[in-house]
């Protein structure tokens, strides 16, 4: 049996259904991400599993034990909140020690455990500061340490990085993943940032309007979107309608298709890559430098394609250039309606 089992979970607030029929399992030590746009129900789902919200229907099991109706303090869950939720009346150290003190653990043991976890999150020298005296990144480290020190059965991360600036976010991403792997912690991460989800997760559960619309490894979800929403959310996919898909790619299913911008080549096919037979003529209408990548918008009279080309001196096109597009055959994804 899997470490965490969520069966037919449903939640509604009055007449408003937040999510229904949620089913998934998580293995011990796995890092999974609930990914989706704002309002899709991912945070509510997390809160329901944590016991902070009641569920309307369904079951939650951890290590074979039903926890659906247990109060939060008895579920063995550690949580890091988006807005830190640190206790302002306590120092960093007191915040971290809070869970252990509540459990009535021995004072010396608390001291030892707190010291250990402070080293893990690299907070040495800041432990005696009040929360107001710490930066956003340091606060989130305290929050992480506070959640880790009690050795929870599952670690919940509710958009913990979204209030931080890009540089600190990247550092903390790495730290969280490293700590999670070292401690073998089963972790559920909630985010609306697909890049964050791809970098950190073993598996992604992509949610939309209260449903899990696709799940799999980051590679599977990114390269094989099953529907238009996933294709739109996970990357800058080009969505091609049924008629053009038939014309350009020779598909026969009568479904829309999605092609990643980096799976399209301009004027010449890449070596060793099997491309579609037809070269689609088009005109470059816009180009945009994204650092190491140059993004071209190509109008083919039927559709507009985004094409990403590695930024090198050899292949530079200008707006107005007439070009031919070649599509990687294996990267043409037929989308379910």
């Amino acid at each position: 049996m899997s470490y965490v089992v969520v069966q037919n979970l449903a939640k509604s607030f009055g007449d408003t259904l937040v999510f229904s029929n949620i089913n998934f399992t998580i293995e011990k030590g796995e890092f999974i991400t609930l990914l989706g746009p704002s309002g899709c129900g991912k945070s509510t789902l997390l809160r329901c599993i944590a016991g902070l919200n009641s569920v309307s229907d369904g079951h939650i099991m951890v290590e074979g034990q039903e926890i659906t109706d247990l109060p939060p303090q008895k579920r063995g869950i550690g949580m890091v909140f988006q807005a830190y939720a640190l206790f302002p009346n306590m120092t960093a150290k007191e915040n971290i020690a809070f869970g252990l003190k509540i459990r009535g653990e021995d004072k010396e043991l608390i001291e030892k455990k707190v010291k250990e976890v402070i080293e893990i999150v690299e907070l040495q020298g800041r432990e005696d500061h009040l929360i107001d005296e710490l930066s956003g990144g340091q606060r989130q480290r305290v929050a992480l340490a506070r959640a880790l020190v009690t050795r929870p059965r599952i670690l919940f991360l509710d958009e913990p990085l979204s209030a931080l600036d890009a540089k600190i976010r990247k550092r903390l991403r790495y730290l969280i993943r490293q700590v999670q792997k070292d401690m073998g912690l089963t972790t559920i991460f909630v985010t609306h940032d697909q890049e964050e989800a791809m970098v950190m997760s073993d598996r992604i559960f992509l949610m939309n309007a209260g449903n899990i619309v696709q799940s799999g490894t980051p590679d599977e979800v990114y390269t094989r979107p099953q529907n238009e929403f996933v294709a739109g959310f996970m990357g800058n996919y080009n969505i091609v309608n049924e008629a053009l898909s038939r014309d350009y790619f020779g598909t026969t299913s009568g479904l829309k298709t999605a092609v990643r911008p980096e799976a399209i080549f301009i004027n010449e096919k890449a070596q060793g890559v099997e491309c579609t037979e037809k070269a689609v003529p088009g005109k470059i209408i816009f180009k945009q430098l994204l650092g190491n990548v140059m993004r071209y918008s190509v109008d083919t009279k039927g559709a507009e394609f985004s094409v990403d080309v590695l930024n090198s001196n050899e292949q530079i096109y200008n707006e107005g250039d007439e070009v031919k597009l070649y599509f990687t055959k294996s990267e043409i994804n037929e989308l379910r309606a």
Partner: protein
Amino acid sequence: MQRNNNLLHRIVIAVVVLVMVLPLVATLLYSLSTHWGATILPDGFTFKWYLDLLGEPRFLASFGRSLLVCICGLFLCIVVMLPVIFLVFLSLPGLKKVFNFIVVLPFAVPPVVSSVGLLQLYSDGFLPISGTFWILIFTYFTIVIPFVYRSMANSFAAINLHDLVDAARLLGASTPKAFFLCVLPNLKKGILSACFISFSILFGEFVFANILVGSRYETMQIYLYNTRSVSGHYTSALVIFYFAFIFVFTLLANRIGNKK
């Protein structure tokens, strides 16, 4: 033009300050004077009236009664309102509107009208406490509800209440423990400022005290009223004493309010 404007502003402010301070200075001078009749300044100065005041057992008793009734009324209000506001903000946010309406009521009904109602309510029936110390406590409880509620509601709104309680519960604390260990310490400023404002208001309260208990439970304000004809110098000393006492409280409230 700018200079003229500045001068005008200063004159307006000086006039306002003068209007406010002059009666107080006059009262202070009168309380320190041996005799002040038909002259611009008193004939002489003395601390006699203050010494008389502080040596008068009836005054000290009334001061003690005022302190007691104010502290008890305020304590009752805080003890009752704190958990109520906590629950409203945590679980029943829909009731905030109801509370916003309720807290205006003590202002909407004039004290003379509500004291008649309170006298009728407490004269007989299940709680016959009319004319006693207890009726003042329950009345003062209602008077300070708006100040206590507003001050505490602001404090609750300023902290991330839901996340703090959720975090504490996930770490193993029950809701009451979460309240006492993680929420209450962060409301300290709000509670203290509510106490000081409410105390200052209750300490100067006269109408309810006079109508509901009168001389049967002589508070400082009733004592002031009863001794108004004894000596102008003496009552002036009492007024200045009262003013100084409240002034210290206001200063403390400001200090606490501004403290980071």
